[in-house]
């Protein structure tokens, strides 16, 4: 066992982790630990843009962004935190540009912006250009730029180290336990402040846009240490994943004029969101697709729709909508322009579908995409230990693994990249500030015991169960019964199944007994995380007897502000039993009202 000491320790090297590490390292001795090489992080898969009211090409205001985000969250987002994020957004995006991020440009040389779902001009209600983008690889450029800046600033990295436990001493964070993947050796990182930035857990579901690495490690680790998970029932299904594969097709496609078409050739979103149509919020569109499929309006009667970005289609509907360019000319595109703006999407479709989106429509279906819920924090990244806003000294979380909550029941497109840079930065600053005056807590006796116990369990099972099967069964039941639409019966069915799978998981034994790159062992441990999060998600969802944002119940189809304008806090005790508590939503300026697009 090796021991290291850092004032600030960041777990995870995606957008939030790199931003936190970059800021913390300016004043504190900092290290970033990641199970992947930093540039492999899933931030790099984000496509369409990062939201900020720069007003490059048309009028926009952070207040409008705030309102859109509150509305998008179906009023479950905490309005103080949302206002903070949207105000900070403008400087945060300029800062990325100052770090060299190659944004696309307007004709005048400003940062180029495109329309995105749910982002509106608050006076007209029409879509506004707020998504700052670098082609359709904005996340890639953010990830690369932040990693480059970390190299420039000599930030310490521990690449391919799997963090498996959080250490706490006297109610404060004191370290983490990690395993060096290349050697299998245990390392204890002793720290004053620890920032979790471990990303999401979309691998709970069968069809997902998420990376294999998205196994919710941070949330699972903290849950096992008695820290609650907030609003886990809210998981976003992005309406446009590649059929069967789930690979994301950015909302930027619709921002550039693409439309959704059903099996009858109808632009069906006109019926569900008459004002913004194909640029409605993601939950609204995913539900519309399911309803269309149920009515027999899928393509060839199947469970998918077409997303159509062919120039003739775009120009046809742009003319009907009266869409104009910023200079007032009618909005008309060519195939070449589409290729220039969405090169990766075109490439994905050609590779995986053999479809050329310039000449053929893309078959799409909703795909599990984003965790609105996670480790509860305030707007400075400080982790809350309970529903009464008490914090855990020295512990921070940021990015998708955290729940601030700015996304509430449904995240707006472009707000995830924004969340990373704003809250990653503030968590880094706050952790460094804390570490200036805080002392190192003594490490607990036998710090690696709990981690070793977890790993031993999957090494020494009786081997009568196969982890791969358990994983597939979990993904299937969660997609079928805990997807876009839910009801009591289905959710109970899913919960029973997950509990059965958790029992069966105890019999798993990994085949690889080696030390070096034992991916068999890590993947099994990750599956344990997914199972825990699947259970917490389902328990939280069953209790919430209303429909709000990404949690849509057929047996309770209405939003119930009287009883449910509150955040779920799920606690897991040592025996694995889950208890739910609740925290009221913070409402400052915007009184909840019906959500219409």
């Amino acid at each position, binding site marked *: 066992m090796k021991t290291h000491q850092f004032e600030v320790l960041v777990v995870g090297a995606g957008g939030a982790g790199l931003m936190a590490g970059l800021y913390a390292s300016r004043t504190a001795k900092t290290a970033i630990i990641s199970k992947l090489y930093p540039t*492999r992080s*899933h931030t790099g898969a984000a496509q369409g843009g990062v939201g900020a009211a720069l007003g490059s090409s048309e009028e926009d205001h952070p207040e409008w962004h705030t309102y859109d985000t509150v509305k998008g969250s179906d009023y479950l987002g905490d309005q103080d935190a949302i206002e903070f994020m949207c105000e900070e957004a403008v400087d945060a995006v300029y800062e990325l*540009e100052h770090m*060299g991020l190659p944004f696309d*440009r307007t004709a005048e*040389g400003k940062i180029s912006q495109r329309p995105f779902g749910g982002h509106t001009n608050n006076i007209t209600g029409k879509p506004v250009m707020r998504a700052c983008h670098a082609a359709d690889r904005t996340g890639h450029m953010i990830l690369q730029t932040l990693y*480059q800046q970390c190299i420039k600033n000599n930030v310490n990295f521990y690449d391919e180290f799997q963090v498996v436990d959080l250490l706490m001493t006297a109610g404060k964070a004191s370290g983490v336990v990690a395993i060096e993947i290349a050697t299998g050796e245990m390392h204890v990182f002793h720290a004053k402040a620890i920032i979790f930035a471990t990303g999401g857990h979309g691998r709970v579901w069968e069809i997902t846009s998420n990376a294999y690495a998205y196994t919710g490690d941070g949330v699972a680790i903290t849950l096992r240490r008695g820290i609650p998970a907030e609003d886990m029932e809210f998981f976003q299904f992005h309406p446009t994943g590649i059929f069967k594969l789930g*690979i994301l097709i950015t909302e930027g496609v619709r921002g550039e004029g693409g439309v959704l078409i059903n099996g009858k050739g109808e632009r069906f979103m006109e019926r569900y969101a008459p004002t913004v149509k194909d640029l409605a919020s993601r939950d609204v569109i995913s539900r519309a697709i399911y309803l269309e499929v149920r009515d027999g309006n899928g393509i060839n009667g199947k469970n998918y729709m077409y997303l159509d970005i062919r120039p003739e289609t775009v120009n046809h509907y742009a003319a009907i909508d009266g869409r104009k360019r910023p200079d007032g000319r009618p909005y008309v595109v060519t195939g070449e322009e589409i290729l220039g703006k969405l090169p990766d999407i075109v*490439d994905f479709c050609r590779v995986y579908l053999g479809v050329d989106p310039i000449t053929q429509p893309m078959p799409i279906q909703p795909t599990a995409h984003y965790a609105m819920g996670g480790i509860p924090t305030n707007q400075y990244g400080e982790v809350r230990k309970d529903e009464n806003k008490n914090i855990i000294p020295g512990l921070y979380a940021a990015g998708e693994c955290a729940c601030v909550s700015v996304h509430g029941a449904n995240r707006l497109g472009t707000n995830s990249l924004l969340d990373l840079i704003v809250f990653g930065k503030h968590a880094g600053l706050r952790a460094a500030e804390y570490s200036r005056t805080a002392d190192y807590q003594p490490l607990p006796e036998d710090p690696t015991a709990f981690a070793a116990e977890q790993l031993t369990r999957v090494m020494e099972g009786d081997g009568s169960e196969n982890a791969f099967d358990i994983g597939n069964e979990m993904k299937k039941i969660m997609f079928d019964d805990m997807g876009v639409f839910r009801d009591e019966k289905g959710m109970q069915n899913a919960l029973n199944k997950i509990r059965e799978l958790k029992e069966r998981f105890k019999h798993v034994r990994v085949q690889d007994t*080696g030390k070096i790159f034992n991916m068999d062992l890590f993947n099994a441990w990750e599956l344990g995380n997914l199972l825990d999060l699947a259970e917490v998600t389902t328990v939280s969802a069953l209790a919430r007897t209303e429909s709000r944002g990404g949690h849509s119940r057929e047996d309770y189809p209405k939003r119930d502000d009287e009883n449910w304008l509150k955040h779920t806090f799920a606690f897991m005790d040592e025996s694995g039993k889950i208890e739910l508590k609740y925290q009221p939503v913070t409402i400052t300026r915007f009184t909840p009202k019906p959500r219409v697009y």
Partner: protein
Amino acid sequence: MQVSLKVFRYNPEKDKKPRYETYKMEADPTDRVLDLLEKVKGYEDGTLSFRRSCAHGVCGSDAMRINGSNKLACKALVQDFGSKITVEPILGLPVIKDLIVDMEPFFDNFRKVLPYFINDDPVPEKERYQSREDRERFDDTTKCILCAACTTSCPSFWASDEYLGPSAIVNAHRFIFDSRDQGAAERLKIMNEIMGVSRCHTIFNCTLACPREIQITKAIGEVKKALMTGSLE
């Protein structure tokens, strides 16, 4: 269709030398080679080790040699390789286990080229302006995902991993030709060193290997030209 998947295996804790295992399985023509590897790992041999994450060609984890060419396993479809598929680790980096190689020499080279934005002027209140033409100038090289498919397809790199290699040069190019950046002179000096661009003999393996379709040989040529002419035009 029936596929025979032949995989390079090496477990340093057990094997004296590398060996090959062949796995026969049912596959769809549109399955990714990565899907096949996952299947082997899930049902045939849990010890099979390889890196992977995003599974759609943007994270750069799973570069490997498939039927002799460098590919991302997640972007390589069965239908493009037929019923006999051989998967081996990328060349020129030490094999650690099965399909996993030591990436450190690769990232060391990346870090040598000052792969970050340099501009010491005071920052403006808003963005630095840049024309669309200036932005377009280096667009192609911003696409690099550091998968190492190019560098490990390069015979000059096979001869010596001291050679910076195509990927590091691509990342230098991304900044040298960015009109906002001020570090070009320093980077060009590095490019001009003995293990810099002069080791590129325009074999084009890198360009063929790039899963992001970056015109790598062209980018290296532009760096060479900048060195010869002393101009970034």
